[in-house]
């Protein structure tokens, strides 16, 4: 127990050092902005990771919450001039409420059915963004989202926004860790390992799943809020089915049931298109191939995959030494 908390503290310190170092010493705004996007994607992946990795629920429509967060703040702060920070509270509240309403009937389903249910939900929300054009700006998108300000600090420059986003990410990681090490976390893991067994022991699985669903929706909405005030323009295309797929991919490739897995997955999937820029026409083929190959050979995600390779090679060396 002591070792574990020591390791956690080391991990967190490393994380903070990395963030501070990169934030203060990166001069090029382009790299800062890439890393900011990684941060926003990490938030998305974290929430979904809790849902998929620990509670064992598939969600193929999570981009809906991302979009709800973005559009709520856009409409409230852009059209109605309400303070963005207040809009943030509304955005999260909205997402959590919708998660509750949708989750109640949907989380009773299992396996593929749950996946399809969330997919349907995601598509409906996306169509709503597109069709309710008087409010959302429709397919052409929403222009005129205000810049975030907190007193004298304006969150417009690359560096300020970088720290804002990564600060939020760190907070989210802390909260996730706290949940996992609590009673709720243990109950979650029991659901993942065997739902019937958990039920037998008296775990209120349905309520627990609902809570995690709402939590992941909240994180998604916060990510949407940060995205909206960063790009200052949103359109329905950014919250569609492929984005939901991309989010699931981040979690699965990074490694489910691993907080750092979410970070890894988000980083990889944000950087990959940048790296593949040079391949233009072949980008889709390469992306699909990478997805398939990783899932076929390292289905537990890259964190577990690399750890496994490391373990195996260590054992081989050990055995070699013994003989």
């Amino acid at each position, binding site marked *: 127990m002591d070792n574990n908390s020591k390791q956690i503290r080391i991990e967190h310190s490393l994380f903070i050092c990395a963030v501070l170092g990169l934030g203060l010493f990166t001069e*090029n*705004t*382009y*790299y800062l*902005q*890439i890393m900011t*996007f990684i941060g926003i994607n990490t938030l998305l992946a974290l929430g979904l990771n809790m849902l998929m990795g620990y509670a064992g629920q598939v969600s193929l429509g999570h981009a809906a919450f991302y979009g709800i967060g973005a559009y709520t703040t856009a409409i409230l702060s852009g059209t109605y001039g309400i303070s963005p920070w207040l809009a943030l509270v509304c955005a999260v509240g909205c997402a959590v409420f919708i998660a509750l309403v949708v989750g109640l009937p949907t989380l009773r389903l299992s396996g593929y059915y749950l996946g399809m249910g969330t997919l349907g939900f995601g598509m409906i929300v996306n169509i709503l963004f*597109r*069709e309710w*054009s008087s409010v959302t700006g*429709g*397919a*052409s*998108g929403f*222009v005129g989202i205000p810049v975030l300000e907190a007193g004298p600090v304006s969150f*417009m420059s690359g560096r300020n926004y970088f720290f804002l986003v990564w600060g939020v990410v760190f907070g989210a990681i802390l909260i996730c860790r706290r949940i996992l090490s609590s009673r709720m976390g243990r109950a979650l893991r029991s659901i993942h390992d065997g739902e019937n067994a958990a039920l037998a022991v008296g775990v209120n699985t349905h309520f627990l799943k609902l809570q995690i669903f709402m939590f992941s929706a909240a994180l998604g909405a916060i990510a949407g809020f940060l995205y909206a005030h960063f*790009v*200052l*323009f*949103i*359109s329905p*295309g*950014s919250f569609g089915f492929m984005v939901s797929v991309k989010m699931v991919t981040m979690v699965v490739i990074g490694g489910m049931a691993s907080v750092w897995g979410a970070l890894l997955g988000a980083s990889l999937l944000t950087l990959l*298109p*940048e790296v593949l*820029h040079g391949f*233009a*026409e072949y*980008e*889709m083929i390469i992306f699909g191939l990478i997805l398939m190959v990783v899932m076929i050979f390292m289905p537990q995600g890259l964190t577990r995959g690399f750890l496994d390779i490391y373990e195996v090679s260590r054992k081989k060396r050990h055995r070699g030494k013994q003989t």
Partner: protein
Amino acid sequence: MKKLTTAVLALALAFLPATGLMAASVYKVGGIFSSTGRASFLGDPEKKTMEMMVEKINASGGIDGHMLEAMIYDSEGDPAKAVSAVNKLIHKDKVLAIIGPSTTPTTLAIVNFVERAQVPLISCAAGVKITSPVKPWVFKTAQSDLLAVAAVYQHIKAAGIKKIGIITVANSFGESGKNQLLNQAKDFGLEVVQAESFGAKDTDTTAQLTKIKSAAPQAIVCWGTNPGPAVVAKNVKQLKIDIPLYQSHGVASPKFIELAGDAAEGIILPTGKILVTGLLDGSDVQKKILESYQADYSAKYKGNVSGFGGYAYDAVNILANALKGTGGDKGKIRDNLEATQNHIGATGEFNFSGKDHNGLSPEAFVMVEIKDGTWKLIK
């Protein structure tokens, strides 16, 4: 002998720094196009045109002796990708100006970034929101849908039609067109009796057309880009709806006739002159430019030009002119862009000003009708 070699060496050394200077000062120009993805029919010809034009300019000595270097990225029609592309261009590649993007949402997504970084942008997208209200650093070469709708309505009004039904694609092009169609109807004494929409990939629009038919309009206006409007054209024939069908400039390409087949017969639409270069009067101001563009493009890429590629053609030429004498100063480039007057391009004649960053007039459009599987100029 020794004196000769010293002389040669001295001459070489004298030239070396000069060539070094020339090689170092390349004008970097950025391009963002949706060469893959939903809007690739826009981005692909635009990208090819830009590459071809940069090559051509460099072959004739560059601008003020500076060679152009084009850094082109693919937005895939995705605003988020356009944002990361524009950041790369501004902060990593440090370009002097950017051409593109191809669609309205991708353009609107990057407008704030170019304004903040003060980098001139010449967009190839149609949305009227891009240059209205005018933003100091943002220009565009594509005709706005405001003008296109006006051209269509002009023709409808002249035909004595009063009631129309509209059917539009549920994407930014169709939606923007729908707004214009609804807003401008009264100005031409027209009444929109029914407005329907359909998805870009829909296989059948007979339900929507039936609804329009039952409202008894005298003509139907369809606003979208391939392949949807071709489906609409086919369905109109299948349902035997015997009233005039108007389309938008989004289908002003041979591909539309290929897709719609026999159903294309009799359809009327506005288009940039590029589509009907061969039919233009010898005295037409744009004819020479269009022929030269067609010749260059088919020589390099073995295909026909399209109006969409024309936007990039004009953007590169206007930018090239604006670069002259600026020495790479972005502010001067911007000012030159704004001062561009009487520029004859593939899309029309451009006259920019502080109040107009699109620079086109209704003359940028001609009306055509599809007859016997090909275009026919009509008044």
